[in-house]
């Protein structure tokens, strides 16, 4: 990926790899380590690993992936598998939509492949052993490559090989000979002037023969190292995030309720109001807005309208607008009139078969769980619009009683007075704290900077060898490092042309 490797073995480059003979000398841990090192620093190996990762990524974008958290829970995973059964492979789901894709995979059916896919961890590719170990190998490889290359890059930038043997000037991929006139200093001055005009650094050595060296963008190749190591920084950010981060993608609050965040730092969130707006002409959603107050140990610390592109950030936590739905304002009282529960109940789940929205709460001190079931719409005969159904269960799941309540009514269920005050809305927020994010952004910035540096500022080098004979005549040999890079070829030829011109124009001074 760098200019260095492309120019082959040129003066000032990293020393060649140790001789084969040395490596084969002993068997054992040393040779094993050396073999691993050779493998990790091999560009070919790197390319192969990258391509396999790309292949896995492709699978991951084609095969529907299990949502985060589902894979860890076998029951949830089974439910999810049943749910995605018809669309596991796009070919099946889209036979009507895109027949070509369907035709390509006519034989793949859920039953045939699901077990295999699960065994191969294809539903969780990015958490799979394949992906993780390959990513680890790639990381090791790019750390190895970078440390392998750094000394050579450093040497080539700071202590370039200036005095080169004559043979180089006849074998270099680009070379020219120019007949020159004048004293050695004069000639060097002219050549140096041309090079400096092109922002080259000029170094010369004199050991009887004058050696000239010019280069620019000598820090460009370091972009390789920056670009590669930035990936390690990003990866570190991801690991920090997954180890020390917090995430709740299903944080629901009904209007008027206050719900604590499941971190230990005493933060709770109140939803004042949720509003969804739609474009009148198309019916497409226009806005989802949650008016939210954040409390720290009961004290208000932040108040903001959270929108899809406007998260609320407080104390390292971020609150994002994620979803929304209906909620029921419920209250429960004992038959003696003592209020036991009064809050908004988010109907955050949906009952797959009936399409009804469902929410739940506990009656404090009773060990009873209450399910609140909303209407499925105008055609629903069990729970009509404007009604809410309440079903009470014991903690072991035994049903106790159930009633449907009209809005504003109070009904006795299982020995408690249930009141359905009104329907309202809840908001679903994603709450997260990711201490790895700064590392990810740092790595991203470094990556772009590194790539721009190495790709757009390739190290340009030119060598010269000046042999002067008595009488003020001499030969200047010039050689460049460009080989396949046509751009660098023109750079070299342009320089040579200019240097030539500098010697054909009459001496002004």
């Amino acid at each position, binding site marked *: 990926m760098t200019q260095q490797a492309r120019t082959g073995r040129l003066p000032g480059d990293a020393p060649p790899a140790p001789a084969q003979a040395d490596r084969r000398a002993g068997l054992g841990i040393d040779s094993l380590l050396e073999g691993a090192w050779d493998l990790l620093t091999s*560009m070919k190996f790197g*390319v192969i690993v990258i391509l396999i*990762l790309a292949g896995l*990524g492709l699978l*991951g974008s084609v095969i529907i992936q299990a949502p985060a958290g589902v894979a860890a829970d076998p029951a949830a995973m089974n439910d999810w598998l049943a749910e995605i059964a018809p669309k596991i492979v796009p070919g099946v789901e889209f036979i009507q939509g895109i027949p070509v894709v369907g035709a390509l995979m006519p034989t793949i059916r859920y039953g045939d492949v699901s077990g295999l896919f699960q065994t191969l961890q294809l539903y969780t590719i990015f958490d799979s052993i394949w992906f993780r170990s390959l990513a680890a190998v790639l990381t090791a490889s790019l750390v190895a490559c970078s440390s392998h290359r750094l000394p050579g890059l450093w040497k080539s930038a700071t202590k370039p090989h200036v005095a080169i043997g004559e043979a180089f000037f006849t074998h270099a991929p680009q070379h020219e000979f120019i007949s020159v006139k004048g004293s050695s200093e004069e000639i060097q001055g002219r050549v140096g002037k041309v090079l400096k005009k092109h922002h080259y650094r000029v170094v010369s050595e004199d050991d009887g023969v004058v050696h000239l060296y010019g280069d620019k963008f000598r820090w460009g190749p370091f972009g390789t190292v920056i670009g590669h190591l930035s990936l390690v920084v990003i990866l570190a950010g991801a690991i920090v995030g997954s180890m020390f981060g917090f995430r709740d993608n299903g944080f629901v609050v009904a209007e008027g309720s206050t719900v604590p965040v499941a971190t230990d730092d005493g933060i709770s969130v109140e939803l004042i109001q949720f509003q969804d707006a739609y474009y009148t002409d198309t019916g*497409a959603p226009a806005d989802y807005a949650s008016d939210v107050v954040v409390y720290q140990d009961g004290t208000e610390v932040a108040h903001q309208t959270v929108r899809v*592109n406007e998260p609320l950030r407080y104390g390292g936590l971020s609150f994002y607008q994620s979803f929304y739905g209906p909620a029921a304002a419920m209250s429960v009282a004992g038959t003696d009139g003592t209020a036991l529960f009064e809050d908004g109940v988010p109907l955050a789940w949906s009952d797959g078969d009936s399409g009804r929205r469902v929410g739940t709460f506990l009656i404090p001190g009773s060990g009873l769980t209450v399910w609140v079931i909303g209407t499925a719409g105008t055609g629903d005969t069990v729970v009509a619009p404007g009604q809410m159904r309440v079903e009470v269960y014991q903690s072991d799941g035994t049903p106790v009683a159930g009633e449907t309540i009209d809005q504003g009514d109070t009904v006795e269920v299982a020995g408690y007075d249930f009141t359905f005050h009104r329907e309202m809305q809840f908001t679903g927020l994603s709450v997260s704290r990711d201490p790895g994010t700064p590392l990810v952004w740092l790595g*991203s910035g470094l990556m772009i900077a590194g*790539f721009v540096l190495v790709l757009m500022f390739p190290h340009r080098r030119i060598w010269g060898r000046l042999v002067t004979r008595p009488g003020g005549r001499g030969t200047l040999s010039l050689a460049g490092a460009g080989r396949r890079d046509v751009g660098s070829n023109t750079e070299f030829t342009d320089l040579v042309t200019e240097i030539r011109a500098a010697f054909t124009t009459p001496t002004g001074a």
Partner: protein
Amino acid sequence: MYKMSEYAFIAAIMATGLALLLYLAYALSGLRAARMQTAGTGARTGILAFAAGPRTAALGRYATILGWLGFAFLSAWLVFRTIATGHGPFANMYEFSVSFAWGILGAYYWFEHRYHQRILGLFALPVALALMFYATTIPSEVEPLVPALQNNLLLSVHVAVAIVAYGSFTIAAAAALLYLIQPEGGRWGLPKPEVLDEIGYKAIVVGFPFLTAVIVLGAIWADVAWGRYWSWDPKETASLVTWLIYGAYLHARVVRNWRGRKSAYLLLVGFGATLFTYFGNLWFGGLHSYSGLG
């Protein structure tokens, strides 16, 4: 403004279509002249020089002018549509497709200006034209933005950067294709393999950092709108796959035995991944479902 943008779009299709015809005529005329030349000397085995006689050169010039005109009309479309919608015209499949075509033409003319290889136009322009024709088949109404897209700055920058990257990748693929259809050493007066290799590389030199920026900007946006910088959304993943392939290309190009043809194949694979990333959300769903195609 909406009307103006429509007119500009139609004009761009016509100009680009004509330009493509002229590029075809240019290629045929050049090849014919070359064949006549070699037939005269009796040399049939050597490398043909693509003979740019006055007629061919004139055709080439007109092709370039018309192509530039197409690019200019698309630029006008871009401006009018931006004014009409109030954001960069990148919010649905129609807008993105036309912008993609704009990116291809822009990238192509940059390379034509720099390397004077008009034959490449024969491969690049059809892609741009196909995207424009595709755009005519899908709804082009200006729709208000859904909440997730309501971030003008990031929408405009994220997708604008993507268009530069995709445009460059198209040119790289065109160069790779031209590289691969020639036997070793070059033939038929087509651009020299070294030049094509150089064009392909230079296109990636631009495209790869831009694609990196697309992904990073996407991650920043995802962090703002979706609450996490990376969620393995299919389109995200596909762009990562594309990035990996071009990354592999940059490395393969400096491996001794993988220079040349193998690297050129990777450019084609990379372009396939680019198209997959581009069209993928039409059928794999996910968070990037903004195509406006239901």
